[in-house]
């Protein structure tokens, strides 16, 4: 699927509307989005082949040295003068608020015209093939063990086309990503749900990994039915890449989103240049920092993708900003302005967030634990950038006794504590590395965007409950 022909046909309309609104505002940009998604899914009793959640529309961003103004709409055809008047009227405020506008410097609009494309192999797979693969996987899992109550297999590709137009910039980008899922509902006395998630920009890779993952997800299910509740306490813990990523995301990802700095909602603002983690810890974020689900070429403010080092050798070095927060802080935007959709506001958001690899061997890390747990697979997490509390929930853990992994599984595992305590307790970092591109992240309890996170294995000392 090439770049959206619909958006291609709207370049002129966008330029004309920018020019018309430019008579009133010193900065005007338009982001056009055309996102298509598909869902293929099969389980023991049902199947599905349908569109997934997509979007198609425009958001106009305006600035005049005071507040920012935005207007979201479905189409920009027609008389531009009339449309510009409608937009300008729609974003007016009640007179009582006129004296309360913020003041910022003028926004930069450096000239750039460029088209970005990242190829996928999606065109080689039709609906019948993808649904057929899901059916085959589900049937295989259901037939493998009579204790399997149901098994879900799903493949979800999506294609992104975005057009950004301002007075001096015209950018387009087109790329795709896909996720695959295996979920086994298994009952052997206790009922459990075991899952396996894949993410890649090649369906061939997703399919190969799903096919190769059936035995692994069944094996996990068979172990999870034996899982016991964990005895709450403080333990030495080894994280898998998924949990490492969750810590990166919740501990310091949200904490360095610089729109939170503007609102005095993040302690990170006051810790720039200071130790916030173990001296062996390094952390990065950026659409250009890794190849994963959040690897776009430019953000929803038209800023090119960055690779930002957030923590260097334990010291907090940089934050992540969108256009509005950078303007208020007097910094350069870092390409982290992202929207849930064209209908929603742009905020400072994470992209691909991860701890950098270390030098330790995983087997040495496990061997160094007298009694603790290795914990696996993100369930969910919650940030608290103002007060640096953290909660991360892992799907399961495996007990480590005298330096060896046992067959003792615990589930679920809720890790919580004070962020600097957790990060400063990191004592070993493995030389392995994986970024998992299947996550979604909200800001508070809304504004969902696709993100990846990950890194190597960490050894830390944390509270588990």
């Amino acid at each position, binding site marked *: 699927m090439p770049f959206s022909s619909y958006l291609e046909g709207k370049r002129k309309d966008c330029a004309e509307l920018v020019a018309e609104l430019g008579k009133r505002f010193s900065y005007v940009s338009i982001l056009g989005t055309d996102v298509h998604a598909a869902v293929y899914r099969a389980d023991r009793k049902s199947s599905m082949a*349908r569109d997934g959640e997509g979007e198609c529309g425009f958001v106009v961003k305006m600035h005049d040295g005071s507040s920012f103004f935005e207007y979201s709409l479905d189409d920009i055809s027609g008389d531009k003068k009339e449309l510009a008047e409608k937009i300008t009227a729609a974003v007016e405020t009640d007179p009582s608020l006129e004296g309360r506008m913020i003041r910022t410097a003028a926004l930069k609009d450096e000239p750039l015209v460029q088209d970005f494309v990242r190829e996928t192999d999606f065109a080689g797979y039709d609906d019948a093939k993808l649904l057929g693969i899901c059916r085959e996987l589900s049937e295989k899992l259901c037939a493998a063990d009579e204790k399997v109550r149901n098994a879900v297999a799903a493949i979800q590709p999506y294609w992104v086309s975005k057009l950004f137009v301002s007075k001096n910039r015209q950018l387009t980008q087109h790329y795709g990503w896909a996720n695959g899922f295996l979920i086994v509902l298994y009952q052997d006395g206790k009922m459990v749900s075991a899952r396996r998630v894949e993410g890649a920009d090649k369906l061939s890779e997703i399919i190969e990994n799903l096919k190769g993952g059936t035995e692994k997800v069944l094996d996990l299910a068979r172990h999870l039915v034996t899982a016991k509740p964990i005895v709450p306490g403080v333990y030495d813990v080894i994280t898998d890449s998924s949990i490492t990523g969750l810590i990166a995301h919740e501990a310091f990802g949200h904490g360095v989103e610089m729109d939170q700095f503007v609102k005095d909602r993040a302690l990170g603002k006051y810790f720039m240049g200071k130790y916030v983690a173990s001296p062996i810890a390094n952390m990065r974020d950026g659409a250009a920092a890794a190849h994963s689900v959040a690897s776009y070429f430019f953000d929803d403010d038209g800023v090119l993708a960055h690779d930002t080092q957030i923590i260097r050798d334990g010291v907090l070095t940089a934050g992540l900003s969108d256009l509005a927060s950078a303007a208020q802080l007097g910094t350069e935007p870092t390409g982290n302005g992202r929207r849930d959709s064209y209908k929603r506001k742009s905020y400072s958001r994470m992209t691909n967030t991860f701890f950098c690899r270390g030098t330790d061997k995983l087997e040495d890390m496990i061997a160094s634990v007298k009694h603790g747990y290795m914990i696996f697979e993100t369930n969910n997490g919650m940030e608290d950038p103002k007060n640096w509390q953290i909660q991360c929930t892992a799907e399961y853990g495996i007990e480590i006794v005298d330096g060896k992994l046992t067959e003792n599984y615990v589930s679920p595992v809720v890790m919580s504590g004070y962020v600097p305590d957790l990060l400063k307790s990191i004592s070993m970092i493995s030389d392995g590395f994986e970024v998992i591109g299947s996550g979604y992240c909200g800001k508070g309890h809304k504004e969902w965007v696709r993100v990846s996170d990950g890194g190597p294995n960490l050894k830390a000392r944390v509270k588990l409950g």
Partner: protein
Amino acid sequence: MKDIIEFLRAEPAINDFRITENATKSYELFFVHRDLETVRATDTASADVTVYVDHDGKRGDSTFAVYPSMGEKDLEAKIKSAVERAKLVDNEPYALPEKGELCAALPTNMEDADVKALAAKIADAVYAADDVPGGSINALEIFIYRDTVRVRNSRGVDKKQITHRVMIEAIPTFTNDKESVELYEDHRFTVFEPGKVTAEIAEKMKEVRDRAAARPPKTPMQISVLLRPAEIAMMMRELAADLNYASVYAHANLHSIGDDLQEAGAGDKLTLTMRGVIEGSERSAYFDEDGTELADTELISAGKVSAYFGSSRHGQYLGIEKPSGALRCAEVMPGTLSEKELCAAPYLECVSLSNLQLDLYNDYIGGEIRLAYYFDGEKTVPVTGITMSGRLSDVLKNMRLSEKTAVHGAYRGPERLLMPDITVL
């Protein structure tokens, strides 16, 4: 462009269809401290169209999105593609809801309001509570929405609902000479009462001041833990999800009709009813995405599972004569826990949790507590930096429900739920 229905009727392979149109107009203000950072307005619409194709004794369906910018050729291509997809899908047959017209609006006092003036009044109501020395509201987001949803199908259903709703995200903050702390809060309503908004934010301003004074208590401890409506609602939502027709059909349900969730328990008996409409809840609805008229359903009666609920399709699969429709609101009958009784023994009242963790399969309830009030039997002090965990089945058996009730989001029921013997670390 012609009505979508004309295009769908022109495709002979389609046995049935459903069109769900969503239109939203919004006006949004974003404050940084007390200054206005961003002003937004939106005017968007889209439709989800589902085509149903019967083949080989099965029913296939496929859904696609239609945007206002699409032309006739785009729409025809989408329909053809959806028909081909539906032919690949082989689900058990089911019927769409038949005949029914409705045009309804949720009760509101904001229908005729000038949104710009309304937004300013909401901001005033929030900032009126910003009078605590050391306190501030560091960020405020106000969203005023007018949603219109219309469901039509090939069997004569044509139903429309208009909802006026407001969502506020306010960040109460308290700063002293040692630290600055905040609480995250969102408020949602369909009827604007300035005094009520101010009172709710004022309560949060008091709580955030207490968070600054809060210290970790001596742990570990086994203690009764009180949950507030937001967390009670989450617990009820989790119990209800297990009893959804779709969950039962997929063999994913843990509990079944007749199961006693509170067998041999010493607590208040749980009666949980899923409802279409709860006064004041923005989640209230008169029909679901299929256009099915919603029928209130008592899922759990005095602790025993008494019914399932859900969509018409999955209800038909289970042989339910009149499926309830996809109900979204939950109501719990009040219990016997009085304020006087509460004062008789120590407890920990959760004010702010990171996120209540509930896992039915693993029989777990827990979470990190950001602010709680610890009552030691005599005095109450704010505490923080602790985590709780317990067995959900034990909680269900022995929980106590307050006499006093409250509405929160899609929940109406006891204002407090007491969980005895929880481990706090």
